[in-house]
């Protein structure tokens, strides 16, 4: 296919789509600088909502919980999922298909069904083992929907991997653990990394499953925003959105720079 510079109609089309995608975010960021409480009337520039955001213990606490859950869930899901993918790869035929289909269930089943079913499980176990839903049940639930993404990202890499390289490492005197680290993990690393990144972002984004497994006292950003939207919205939400947006952009730029560097290193080799 010949790649030309995009023509005018295609530029206009992209422009409209990006307008649609970014307009709401732009409005939200704009409103975060509004000194008025109401999001329809502009009352002059102010940074007071940012100040209030940082002073709000509840919101900062919720942000901390969101990040902690996302970090723990993605790390644990990555370990569990990578090990699982290597194991599943050695199954053949029917048993493999069954395991993979069950593994995909959390992805294909609606969030709300998964949230409700986990809530049933945790409230049943809670009565049995005397615990209440909170941080741990949210963490477990997040791991549940993260692992399948890790498995899906690692699997294709495993299939492409050449088994003989691992055997060669063993022949050349590596023990199994060394061969595993030097050959297998090295090969799988891009898949592992993208699985982890996906897990992290899905965990940050989730509302539904957290809502059903949060219990009475635990809150993260999602549940906090949920509460605010149902009761009363404070303009601190706008400030929070603006900061989140900036954070996302910064992270993306950093990842991009690392990618470029890695590509250059590869090219030099």
């Amino acid at each position: 296919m010949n790649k030309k510079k995009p023509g005018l109609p295609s530029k206009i089309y992209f422009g409209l789509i990006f307008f649609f995608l970014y307009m709401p975010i732009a409005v939200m960021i704009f409103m975060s600088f509004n000194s008025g409480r109401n999001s329809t009337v502009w009352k002059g520039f102010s940074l007071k909502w940012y100040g209030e955001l940082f002073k709000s213990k509840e919101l900062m606490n919720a942000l901390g919980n969101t990040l902690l859950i996302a970090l723990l869930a993605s790390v644990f899901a990555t370990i569990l999922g990578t090990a699982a993918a290597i194991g599943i790869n050695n199954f053949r035929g029917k048993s493999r298909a069954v395991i993979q289909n069950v593994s995909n269930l959390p992805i294909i089943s609606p969030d709300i069904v998964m949230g409700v079913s986990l809530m049933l499980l945790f409230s049943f176990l809670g009565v049995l083992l005397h615990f209440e839903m909170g941080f741990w049940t949210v963490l477990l639930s997040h791991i549940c929907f993260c692992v399948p993404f890790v498995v899906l990202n690692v699997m294709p890499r495993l299939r492409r991997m050449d088994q003989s390289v691992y055997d060669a490492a063993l022949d050349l005197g590596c023990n199994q653990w060394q061969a595993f680290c030097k050959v297998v993990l090295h090969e799988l690393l891009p898949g592992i990394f993208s699985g982890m990144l996906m897990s992290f972002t899905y965990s940050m984004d989730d509302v539904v499953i957290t809502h059903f497994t949060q219990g009475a006292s635990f809150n993260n950003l999602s549940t906090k925003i949920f509460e605010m939207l149902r009761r009363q919205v404070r303009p601190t939400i706008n400030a929070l959105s603006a900061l989140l947006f900036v954070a996302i952009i910064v992270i993306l730029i950093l990842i991009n720079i690392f990618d470029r560097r890695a590509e250059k290193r590869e090219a030099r080799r």
Partner: protein
Amino acid sequence: MKSKKLSIPYIAWMVVFTMIPIVMIGLTAFRDKAGGFSLEPFTKAWDYRFVFLKSLWIALLSTVICLILAYPLAYLLTKMKKSTQKTVQLLIMVPMWMNFLLRIYAWKILLQKNGPLDMALSLLGIHGSYIGNTAAVVVGMVYEYLPFMVLPIFTVMSKIDGGLIEAAQDLGSNNLAVFKKVIFPLSIPGVISGITMVFVPSASTFLVAEHLGGKDDVMIGDVIDKIFLNDQNTGSAISLILMVFILIFLILMNLFGDEEALA
């Protein structure tokens, strides 16, 4: 490396956190409040049949609009330079990394009375209410799930062998014919997974209709959320029905996809 043992922890995990919860939904759905076997939850679920239909209707509209918007976008994207493609893909993804609820809230601000859209249109002399109706719900849905349609279609399209297109051109096809005979048929698998990835979450989501829709815009997800607090049995029955619907939908999509691949 040959060991299957490494998957044992995950298999145990799946039994506890995937299989047992689904079985529990099944068991709860066939009981009454006292705990005896009963079909009452399903007779109660029947009351919500119109909510079901409405959810499917909203999901269908959202999916079709996503497809109409995304298909040309994905096609135009394949015609760009590799580096531009990467950037544009990222730009399409960025709003997805904002929290789901913040995205809905943004639309709430945008569409509200005296909000930005209302102001802009009133300059043209048009006044009206843009929130609290089915259209607003569909707009919110399209906003939430559009990237899920663009990305699979683009991935499949960009893997189409350039040689096939050149061959078609050499054999005298014009651009339209190339599109109709080569690009469109080969892009079908992407379209199928895009439809699946948009339809399933939009049929089952909650909160979008609650915040952007009117009184009549209640979706099945909202019903499950409300009902589960007081009546887990009926809630489970509705969840089970939803799950079965979605499984049937997925099987149909799969069948359709396979047939296209064979043709």
